[in-house]
């Protein structure tokens, strides 16, 4: 077991965990942040995507020790108070969320994309989300939601 300190959504947490425990499990089990989902557990589906030090990563592939001292941002960080983040609102408006399992990862990947490229083309959105699989296959509406949230006209 190893004590680590990690800032999650702006809050400092001290946890003592096995150093190889996955960040995904630290978030869900130790911190009770169940917005981040487990899909494939092998870095293919992006359901567990979070930001670590502002970089998009798959939390199922990250040992806890590697986030000691890091800033982690999960889907729970997006809404402020009762107000949805513009991306969340766009997903809701466009029908970009169906069963919901991929949605936290999609939102996180979209947040990262817009932080790097505030006005992406649809093709750039598709590439930005290419590591996120939607088992409902609702890709068209997801891409449209991100496009609208970026402020580009539909």
């Amino acid at each position, binding site marked *: *077991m*190893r004590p680590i300190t990690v800032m999650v959504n702006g809050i400092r947490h001290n946890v003592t965990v*096995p*150093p*190889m*425990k*996955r960040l995904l*499990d630290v978030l869900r089990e130790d911190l009770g942040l169940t917005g981040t989902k487990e899909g494939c*557990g*092998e*870095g*293919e589906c*992006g359901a567990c*995507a979070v930001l670590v030090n502002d*970089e*998009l*990563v*798959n939390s*199922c*592939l*990250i*040992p806890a*020790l*590697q986030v*000691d001292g890091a800033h982690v941002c999960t889907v729970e960080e997006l809404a402020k108070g009762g107000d949805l983040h513009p991306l969340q609102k766009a997903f809701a408006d466009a029908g970009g969320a169906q069963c919901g399992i991929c949605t936290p990862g999609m939102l996180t*990947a979209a947040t*990262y*994309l817009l932080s790097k490229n505030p006005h992406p083309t649809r093709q750039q959105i598709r*590439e*930005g989300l*290419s*590591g*996120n699989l939607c088992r409902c296959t609702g890709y068209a509406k997801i891409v449209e939601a991100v496009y609208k949230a970026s402020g580009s006209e539909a």
Partner: protein
Amino acid sequence: MKSAFGDLELVSASDLNEALRLLGAEPGWEPIAGGTDLMVLLNAGKLQGSRFVSIRHLPELRSITVLDHEVVLGAAVTYTSIREHPVLRAEFPLLPIAASWTGGIANQNRGTIGGNIVNASPAADSAPPLLAYDAFLRVKSMRGERTIPYREFHTGYKQVQLARGEMITAIHLPRQFAGWAHYARKVGARKAQAISKVCLNGVLQREGNTVTGIAVALGSVATTPIRCIAAEAELLGRSITPQTVARAQEALSDEIKPIDDVRSTALYRARVARNLLAEFLLTAHDAR
């Protein structure tokens, strides 16, 4: 079935020397950088080792250094860094292209070039460009360091020239390909995130119509990524004509050893490899 996390040791190396000391210690430790291969094995319950030393944060492994005659990539340089680097994009464009093919954005932010090399998949996207660009590897251990031409690094399926305690620390790219034609095509089931059925990278230099430099490298058609030197020899010093292209295709067919597996068939791979070689040569021929 996940491996039991509690049984696994992981320490963060304070510097490269500490990492090398642990790698040489008994019983063995293994390096972990981005985790995009090792953690998959862990999650699948197939992880072999039990003691790991994290090296991804070490500054000497994370930099891309541009020197007069070469570009040096630290072993823990990520695909994202490779994609974004202006000198790599200008002089070694096949490497950023391969990086863009490797996994999604999240894995490109974590996965490293050194990790892709030691994982030693015959389908690794970064292997053909490293072969085409005559890369060599800097390998260190507590006993010292040595240099290995990347072309000699893979000795068999998932077998590499690394002794116990050794670690790749850097990849060196000689700056001799500016102005050459660069070609890369990966054929897979889908465009994003697919493992290749066949991947061909080629670089070619011409004076007039004469080929004065050429490298042809393929992935997923043998137990290791390979350079097709017999195909290259058919073209070097000659011009690109239907006859030389056909002879190079014949040579390539003899050099590759594709297999049937879940992703494709030997027959398909052999046919596509020949076609990609022709496409590379004709594209390079038409470039001017």
